[in-house]
């Protein structure tokens, strides 16, 4: 019997997993877009983005639009690898 792979605790949190799921599907996404899709509060989203950034799972860049700063997030190679491992471990866990 194959032992269960441990689920990455950084990803096994609802909002962080939601952020990673959005970013895995796109080239880059702005803070307001992530907020709209995850329906999270700005403060909570900001904290979770910081955790994913500190872990090297995502990269964050800031640019200036017409008159306001725009924060863009994109998934890193490490983040892509960790997300794939998480999904594989989830597959084992759910036997799918």
């Amino acid at each position, binding site marked *: 019997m194959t032992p269960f792979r441990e689920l990455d605790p950084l990803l096994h949190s609802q909002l962080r997993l939601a952020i990673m799921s959005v970013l895995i599907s796109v*080239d880059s996404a702005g803070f307001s877009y992530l907020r709209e899709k995850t329906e999270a509060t700005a403060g909570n989203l900001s904290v979770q983005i910081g955790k994913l950034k500190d872990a090297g799972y995502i990269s964050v860049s800031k640019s200036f639009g017409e008159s306001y700063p725009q924060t863009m997030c994109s998934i890193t190679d490490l983040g892509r690898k960790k997300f794939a491992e998480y999904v594989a471990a*989830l597959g084992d866990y759910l036997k799918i």
Partner: protein
Amino acid sequence: MENEEKMMTGEESLSVITEMINKTRVSVTQSSFHLLFWGWLIFVCSLSEFILWKFVGWTNSWYVWFFVIPGTVVSLIYGFTRGKKEKVFTYGTSIYVWTWIAFLFASIVFFIVYPLETGSVAKYMLLMAAIPLFISGVILKFRPLMWGAGAFWFLALVAHFGGETVSGLAMPVAMIVGYLIPGYLLRKRGSHDTFQGA
């Protein structure tokens, strides 16, 4: 999603992943603006060139194509200013934008090596323009654009094998079929100049 450290069951995790991926779809804003802008500009230029050459007898009727230069500037400024407001860039959006920019680069090189006064360029331009049009149709899953690209290729053959009169009308007809009709359909289907594919 208010609880920042909420732990989930495996089923909940799978549900979050599925929900978020489904929410993230190819979104190409501005697409109808550029199709309609270029459709009308090229339609007017190509038809004017044909009428001035055929009925007025002006041999330098190709001068009308200089209107494409300010048109390119307007299109780039519009695209750049709108692009800075984009909240997300999907892979589809990036491919869509860069395919058209690649077409712009190819067109610049083409006009350097093949100046307008050397003769009709319609067949070559239709041949090239059909490629980003077809790819746009695939990305947006919007068949009128793909049919438009098919019409471009067919009209490139018409421009090559048809007589001078038929060749002169190939470009304005192509603009109606490939840019204007799909452009208006796209604008009707999308909301606020944004169209979402699958």
